């Protein structure tokens, strides 16, 4: 008799488990400040891009090459950002990172920053268009662009390790400043981020 009660209890417990744990989760949207770090998936995100750009450009501008150039040439160096290669395990939008680098450099007021190849093309087209359609006194003449002294290039690499639901991702961002005069490297910077993502095997 008692055994039969247990059968019924077991069925109830299992069924109640199914029903209670099956309740739908409510969707909630919260507006947060863009400065707040949001590590949701563990992947490379806007915070990483912004923080790495800030730290690396800050480090670059504190190194001796800047003063040496200013003393030698009597002006600020002109810098252009080239390609940042994505050699990671993630589809990282390197353009966002490049934009963060450009913003940090421009706002530092310590280097002159010039537009990259695709932007220059657009500007030149506009200048050519002005030559035809704009009033003469407002036209901008060609051949007055400032050539860059240095090109910044870089790469983002990752090393991953994973076992039993725990994943460690190690990001390494390398940036270097190459002189356009003689290809010498004036500055080399490196920034590392390590993230550990833990996933539970079972959730209620």
């Amino acid at each position, binding site marked *: 008799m008692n055994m039969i009660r247990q059968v019924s209890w077991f069925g*109830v417990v299992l069924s109640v488990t199914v029903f209670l744990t099956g309740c739908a989760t409510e969707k909630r949207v919260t507006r947060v400040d863009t400065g707040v770090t949001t590590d949701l998936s563990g992947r490379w995100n806007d915070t990483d891009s912004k923080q790495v750009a800030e730290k690396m450009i800050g480090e670059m501008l504190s190194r001796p090459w800047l003063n040496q150039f200013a003393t030698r040439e009597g002006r600020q160096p002109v810098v252009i950002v080239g390609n940042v290669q*994505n050699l990671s395990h993630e589809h990282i939008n390197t353009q966002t990172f490049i934009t963060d680098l450009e913003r940090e450099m421009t706002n530092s007021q310590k280097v002159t920053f010039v537009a990259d190849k695709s932007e220059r093309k657009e500007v030149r087209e506009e200048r050519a268009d002005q030559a035809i359609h704009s009033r003469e006194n407002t036209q901008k003449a060609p051949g007055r662009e400032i050539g860059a002294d240095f090109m910044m290039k870089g790469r983002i690499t990752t090393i991953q390790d994973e076992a039993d639901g725990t994943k460690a991702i190690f990001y390494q961002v390398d940036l270097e400043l190459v002189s356009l005069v003689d290809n010498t490297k004036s500055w080399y910077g490196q920034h590392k981020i390590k993230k550990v993502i833990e996933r539970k095997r079972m959730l209620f």
Partner: protein
Amino acid sequence: MKFFHHVDRTSRLFSGLFPYPLTSNLPVFPTSFVPVVFFLILSLVALEGCASHLSYYDKLSLSLDQGDAEKADQIVAASKSYYGSTSKLLYLMDRGMTLHLAGHYEKSEKFLEEANEMVDDLYTRHLHNEALSLLVNDTKRPFRGDPYEQVLINVINALNYARVEELEEALVEARRVDHRLNVLADTVEEQDYHDDPFARYLSGVLYEANGDLNNAFVAYRNAYEAYQQNQTWLEVPIPHRVKLDLLRITQRLNLTQEHAEYLQAFPEISWRPPSTNDQAEIVVISYLGQAPRLEDRFIDVPISLDALALLLYTKPLGRGQPQRAGGGDAVLYGLQGEIVRISLPRVVPQKTHVEYGQVAVVREGNQETHRTELMENVTAAAKKNLADRLPSVTMRAVARAALKLSTAEGIGYGVSAVGKDDETRNLIHGVVSTLLKVLFITTEEADKRSWRTLPDKIHVSRFSVPSGSMTLTYQSLGQHGERIGAPVEYPMTLQPGETRFLTVYTAE
């Protein structure tokens, strides 16, 4: 008599489930609750329904058979609700594949990227789904995909990026393949599926196209070793192409010792260093046929571990040694002697009729032809993956059947308590428990979900051509050289040093 027999069996069930008597600690279950339990179980059965997977996949399969990937994609897109929340990953995979076959590579990238993220998220299991699968069937668990399917998410996505000439992004997928296979090799038993030689080879091609010769060499070597080590189930002979590429890359890297070793290991290859002046490269990936489907295989199993072991030995279901699960043991012990019906999945191949593909390159009036070579047998990978997991699937199916059986008996007895005399109680018990058993049997269904929009086989043809303008024509051919499907033409202009990836699909 039946009444006492039943009590005896349930006693044994719970003596197996719990090592100590529960009755003294549990509150007495009121008889009035019994109809509630009955209702709950019936609700589950009703929710389960008897939906057939055939009609949808028949339509999808027909479109693919006709080579109409665009229509196949429309069918998948319109059927998102059919997949439901437990098969969302499968929807993403099917959608990603049909878009890929239809040539919408950038759209396909998004679906396969989401699928890749979901595979990681599905590592966490939810008690709700696990409990429901114990009451109904394995389709109540989220579809996670077999390891070979998870690897192919990255392979197909790498080809998406390669097709739109985004090699840097294609290499992200190649690195993911490497990571996934490394984690897999650390997790599973040595004899289980843990490597995909085609995925390794494709990674090598992508690395080389991007100028990373060192990583390309490592990938080709891994591919060669994976082909060698998995010959028991791969159903793919070690491709000539892999051997040629190993010889070529070791020479380019000046790895003289390795080059000499490979020359010795591949006596069938007559090695001639290729010309590198103004050369471009073409890589044709040919998808042939459709991946296998899974179907139910109903088996009546006497409940005992010995019988189960015998079943696994005598039926070609998987490896001989059944895995013993603690809970399963206990349930089975309690129901010794009963016969239950379980359903297990089995692979039904949908073999392609294509033997190989022929690629003709016409350039300035001259024509040269190349053959494709088998690189990946998806059907063989599906069989291997199912064989690896079948022991645990079988154990779970038997445990579930035993639980359903005992629940039907228990509820039957509980409801029978409303009867006034023994005869009425026996009658109620018989009717209710029989009805429940029938309902439970109808809900028994194998988990037949698989990535069916994949091809049966993947062939590759890779060759160098002088750069410039040319027209490439692909034609699938049967066993006797007969043409299968219409030829496909690709006019193209290649730059020196460029690698151009092409994908073609033959449904038959």
